């Protein structure tokens, strides 16, 4: 059921209890988790945080903790399946689900006791009404009772009554069949398309605001959660703009101080500001040239995989009067005279080249002398950390690293605490401080390493897109476009992770739409496959909706993949929380594709 008052029905219920937080591996969930952790720290609510990467891990984590915990909070997972059937919990387990995946499963919506949805009821849901889907069992019982009564009547009248009874029964059965057919249709329409709702981080920020325990850190995390939805193309432009306006109100509320020359805040305090900034990814931490080269929007508009496109880029830079030497060096080292009006200059020139939306509404943060970040920078950095393909790190290690990168302060390690305990008389103070400083690793360093990884990822995406377009790897299969990344492709390991592959997919589709002349192909969705695990022989398959300006981002591949897998009995694993991402055995790839084509044409 939907929760009406998040403070009374959720926060006060868990206030004196122990809670398990099950968190999905995406940035929005990480931000929501950080906000909730901060609230729990305030009120000393004991919790256990378990990162889960798929349905199987969710099940295992639930089994491990169900004996000891009654309350489970699921962040960005669990809304779109019948949770009670999947987990088979005891009657006293209560689940609080804050999930952006839509559509919400109807059982989750109409269960009154165990499932509480931390979702606003008007959040673009269009849930079918109760009577259309659930039929009460009592009606059946009454009918059979009537029939047995009628059966005891004297035989003279029996035949007529029997006929009447038989007619009524046939009538009831027909009505029931009609109702069931209508129910199937309604459910099919409801569950056909998968899309995303309001960011989970924003929901929890609202909870913090209602409790008046919101801080600037929490606001910043909510902004990052929202920006993650936009960067990974999960919400429509309209929704993004509306949500930005909501966040802007909070930002101005937090910035409202009589800040002037005398009463200014310390430079180390966090300042969040609204920016109408350029859509060039990571441009403040990179050189301007590289950023323009590797950002999806500019690269597709210029068609930078062609020679012509690169010439156009040079023209563009010349048109703005930016010398190549300046543009190729690190952004921080560019001349101040160039940096001053950069945004306006770029906007003016890009209008001439057909890029109308080079600027986007977003937020930036500023703390200390060196640290300035835009929200999209944070999203890319944390996503790169979360999915880094280092050999030794498991997925939970990456989760922890990404979680750390979101905090601002210096990290204290256990080693320093241990050292403090072992210190006895006499000890030189200088060596003690040396030890302390050398072992402290700031979370900002982690963020910077994330930014470096994100740069590598973007360069890899750009190169893969260029090679795919130039070698015509994208084939039209009829109802959709298809692309397969071979095993030998450089950086293919990066693309064995779902978020990176989805980003590549969207980038590729955009580039394809700009490069092809076939009008029909421009409206097709894209399915992409990349090798996931060479030893096990699996590939990861992702499907995204067609690219258009007014796209509503609704994805039907979830159901399509399920049906295709069933009909060909391919060995698939639908483990990911987004149903449009699956794992498949390499051998079954062709028959799965054929089934998909037949299904969708």
């Amino acid at each position: 059921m939907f929760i009406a008052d998040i403070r009374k029905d959720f926060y006060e219920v868990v206030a004196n209890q122990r809670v398990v937080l099950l968190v999905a591996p995406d940035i929005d969930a990480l931000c929501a988790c950080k906000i909730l952790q901060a609230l729990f720290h305030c009120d000393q609510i004991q919790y256990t945080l378990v990162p889960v990467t798929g349905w199987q891990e969710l099940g295992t984590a639930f089994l491990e903790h169900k004996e000891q915990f009654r309350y489970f909070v699921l962040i960005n997972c669990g809304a779109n399946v019948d949770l009670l059937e999947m987990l088979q919990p005891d009657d006293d387990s209560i689940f609080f689900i804050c999930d952006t995946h839509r559509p919400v499963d109807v059982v989750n919506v109409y269960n009154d006791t165990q499932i509480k949805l931390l979702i606003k009821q008007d959040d673009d849901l269009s849930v079918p009404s109760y009577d259309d889907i659930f039929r009460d069992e009592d009606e059946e019982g009454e009918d059979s009772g009537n029939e047995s009564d009628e059966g005891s009547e004297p035989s003279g009248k029996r035949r007529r009554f029997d006929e009447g009874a038989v007619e009524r029964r046939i009538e009831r059965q027909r009505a029931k069949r009609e109702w069931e057919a209508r129910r199937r249709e309604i459910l099919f329409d409801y569950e056909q398309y998968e899309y995303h709702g309001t960011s989970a981080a924003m929901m929890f920020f609202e909870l913090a605001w209602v409790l008046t325990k919101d801080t600037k850190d929490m606001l910043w995390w909510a902004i990052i959660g929202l920006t993650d939805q936009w960067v990974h193309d999960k919400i429509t432009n309209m929704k993004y703009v509306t949500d930005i306006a909501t966040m802007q109100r909070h930002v101005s509320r937090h910035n409202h101080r009589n800040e002037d020359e005398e009463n200014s805040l310390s430079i180390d305090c966090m300042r969040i500001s609204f920016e109408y900034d350029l859509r060039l990814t990571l441009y403040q931490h990179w050189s301007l040239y590289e950023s323009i080269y590797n950002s999806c929007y500019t690269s597709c508009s210029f068609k930078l995989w062609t020679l012509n496109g690169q010439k156009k880029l040079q023209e563009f830079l010349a048109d703005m009067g930016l010398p190549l030497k300046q543009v190729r060096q690190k952004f921080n080292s560019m001349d101040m005279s160039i940096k001053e009006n950069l945004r306006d200059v770029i906007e003016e020139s890009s209008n001439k080249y057909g890029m109308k939306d080079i600027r986007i509404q977003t937020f930036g943060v500023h703390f200390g002398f060196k640290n300035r970040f835009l929200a999209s920078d944070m999203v890319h950095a944390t996503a790169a950390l979360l999915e880094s393909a280092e050999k030794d790190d498991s997925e939970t290690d990456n989760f922890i690293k990404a979680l750390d990168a979101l905090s601002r302060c210096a990290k204290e390690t256990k080693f320093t605490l241990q050292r403090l305990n072992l210190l006895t008389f006499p000890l030189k103070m200088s060596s003690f401080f040396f030890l302390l400083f050398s072992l402290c690793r700031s979370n900002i360093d982690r963020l910077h390493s994330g930014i470096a990884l994100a740069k590598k990822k973007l360069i890899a995406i750009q190169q893969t897109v260029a090679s795919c377009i130039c070698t015509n790897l994208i084939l039209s299969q009829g109802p959709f476009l298809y692309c397969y990344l071979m095993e030998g492709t450089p950086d293919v390991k990066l693309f064995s992770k779902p978020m990176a592959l989805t980003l590549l997919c969207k980038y590729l589709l955009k580039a394809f739409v700009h490069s092809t002349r076939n009008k029909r192909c421009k409206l097709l969705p894209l399915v992409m496959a990349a090798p996931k695990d060479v030893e096990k022989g699996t590939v990861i398959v992702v499907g995204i909706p067609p690219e258009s300006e007014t796209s509503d981002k609704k994805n039907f591949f979830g159901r399509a993949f399920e049906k295709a897998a069933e009909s060909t009995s391919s060995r698939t694993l639908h483990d990911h929380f987004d149903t449009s991402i699956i794992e498949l055995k390499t051998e079954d790839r062709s028959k799965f594709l054929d089934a998909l084509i037949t299904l969708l044409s």
Partner: protein
Amino acid sequence: MFCEKAIELIRELHRMSDGQLPAFNEDGLRQVLQEMEALYEQNQSDVNEAKSEGRAKLIPSIKLRHCCLLRNQRCVTAYLYDRLLRIRALRWEYGSVLPANVRFHMCAEELQWFSQYKKSLASFMRSLGGNEGLDITQDMKPPKSLYIEVRCLKDHGEFEIDDGTVILLKKNSQHFLPRWKCEQLIRQGVLEHVVS
């Protein structure tokens, strides 16, 4: 040269700084005591000789040996006392049960001293705070909060808290637990305190 062995003992302790306890150097101690005995014998005989025969020339050597004896005594008592201080610190660091390798480094008398120190500390703690007693070895630094966030660094299995709840400590899970229960595990390296 005299007193060299005593200095060896001191140097050995000085090398192991940071409160670590090296093995009890019985051999070294015995050698020092033997040297002291030898010196004392020689002094005795010389003093008798000086008294009986009035040979004043022996007096400087008697004085020298006496100084050596005093020096040896000072070194040995410093050695023993410093070890006791380290053992005392161990009680505050590790709790009342010492790990086996540390106990191995202590001699029998030191173990006895340790158990008596434990007893007197325990009776002192019981006498504080009314009838309940107060564990003053907890919270050596004033804690900032009752609960701290900890991250599990290795699989430790199940861990029980005061009210009976059992927490499953799996690698990379994070928990928000009462501070006093976590301190032991933080020292052992199973948990890591997360500051955010």
